[in-house]
């Protein structure tokens, strides 16, 4: 993390979050926080509770118990809409784009800019020109190498699609972007592009919670790793203080956190 003149603000804090599905106690009191601009890797074996935790934060499955604080203020997140209104955006691995829409339409889907003419506005008339202009600004902010914003998403590479998804999240003023395996389906070069993008948005003050199975990926882009095991935090360590092998040990339970 680049040194700051003030103490970094806490973007998100999770306190004693519990969640059960029927008899399964998926989260058993999870505590951790993410500071502004920090990239935190969320690791854990299958069934450790990663997805459940993310769904609690993104509002898909609200938590049973516990508190979620955003910038130090407690918030109620009962739906994805709540999460979005508190500046939490989720970037999914593959369901985040409409393949037959161009970049502009994807960036603005369900957040369309309507015509300034009140009569046309009533009809839901789109202001395509303005959306195009803002799309260009949003993509430039991410140094993104999209061939053309008029290009249909299905003609773009996996990395470019992911870039559009991330641009969409950041463009809507997200303070925290949750990314679920953003590079799982990508090749080496494409993954590197996405990693660069993650570092870039983090340098712009956006926090990132990155769910990944890929230890190497976490070591490359994250500042900190949070390891979940059996619904509890097994470790919460700075990346520079840990080796990949120790991280694997923490995930499998072979090693205990110091």
């Amino acid at each position: 993390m680049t040194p700051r003149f003030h103490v970094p603000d806490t973007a998100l804090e999770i306190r004693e979050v519990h969640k059960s599905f029927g008899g399964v106690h998926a989260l058993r009191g999870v505590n951790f926080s993410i500071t502004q601009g920090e990239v935190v890797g969320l690791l854990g074996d299958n069934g450790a509770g990663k997805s459940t935790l993310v769904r609690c934060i993104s509002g898909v499955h609200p938590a049973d118990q516990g508190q979620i604080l955003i910038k130090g203020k407690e918030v109620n997140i009962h739906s994805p809409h709540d999460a979005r209104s508190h500046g939490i955006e989720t970037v999914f691995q593959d369901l985040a784009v409409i393949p037959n829409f161009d970049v502009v339409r994807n960036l603005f889907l369900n957040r369309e800019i309507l015509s300034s003419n009140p009569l046309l506005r009533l009809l839901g008339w789109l202001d395509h020109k303005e959306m195009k202009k803002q799309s260009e600004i949003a993509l430039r902010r991410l140094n993104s190498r999209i061939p053309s914003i008029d290009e249909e998403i299905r003609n773009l590479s996996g990395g470019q699609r992911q870039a559009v998804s991330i641009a969409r999240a950041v463009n809507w003023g997200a303070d925290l972007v949750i990314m679920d395996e953003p590079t799982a389906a990508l090749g080496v070069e494409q993954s590197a592009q996405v990693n660069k993008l993650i570092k870039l948005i983090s340098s712009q003050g956006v926090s990132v919670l990155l769910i990944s199975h890929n230890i190497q990926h976490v070591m490359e882009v994250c500042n900190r790793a949070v390891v979940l095991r059996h619904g509890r935090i097994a470790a919460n360590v700075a990346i520079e203080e840990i080796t990949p092998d120790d991280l694997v040990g923490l995930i499998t339970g072979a090693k205990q956190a110091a």
Partner: protein
Amino acid sequence: MTSLTNAIDGQLPFLRRIFRRIFQREYFVYYALIAVVLFFSAVLADTAFFSLANFMNIIRQTTPITLMAIGMTFALAVGHIDLSVGSVVALSALVCALVLDITYWPIAVAAGLAVGILTGLVNSILTEWLRVSSLLVTLGTMGIVAGLARVLTNLESIPITNDTFTTIFGSGSFASISVMFVWTAIALIIGWIALSKTRFGAHLLAVGGNPSAARAFGINVIKVRMTAMIIAGTTASIAGLLYAGRLHGARYSLGEADLLTVIAAVAIGGTSLFGGRASVTGAVVGSWLMGIINNGLILWGFSTNEQIIARGLILIVAVAIGVKEDRK
């Protein structure tokens, strides 16, 4: 691999880009229209085929198909299909004609429209509730509605003598221009604006393109799909009223053979049969193309049977082109 690298560099080969622009699927229907007109003009040089009067006549006669094609475009845009449109035509016309006998024409029109709206509503509720393909649900309602139309009047035709009704719905004209053109123009403008220019249209196509992404973006997928199916049913009932107005009566067999024509018209117009890609102008031009082919075949001396074969062939060609595009 080269194409991927090229795409990353943002430089599709220049010629290929030009090629792609010229041979876009959206333009196919226009090329087909020109080819068909040229072909029939040559073959039928000794007839009145290539005349303004004939083309005006074709557009006028095709109007009910044009309206159904526009409605079908909305259903296909969200990834659904409505096979019950032909049956709705007959039942709407009959209900309207029956009500017209006992009360004012606006009430009869409302009753006719209600048939389409209700069928669309039932189609969409069943599709969402049972979570089965709209193809199967509307195949069922197609049978039910067609059966109801037969039972309703015991296969008898109902004449319509209300002049106001017949004037508005198909028989009238403004300054020697048939009221059918007004219907086509209104439907085309409303349909085109709704699908291409508004937030509603963007949501329709998003739902058809990737329903789970649309849901993740906070779009009410079920509501959007239901609206599309109701639009398809409503345009079918307007088509029924236009047939009734033009023919001065209603009969159970109205619209019977229209389903294939409508789907072929929409498919050749560039709308994907699997959702997410739709063109209202394409559907309108596609319906005219179907009308021209019909007209040409008749002038050439072919019977209805050959026309049905031609329609089937066109549908298959359109689908073949579309599938190639969709799989890209």
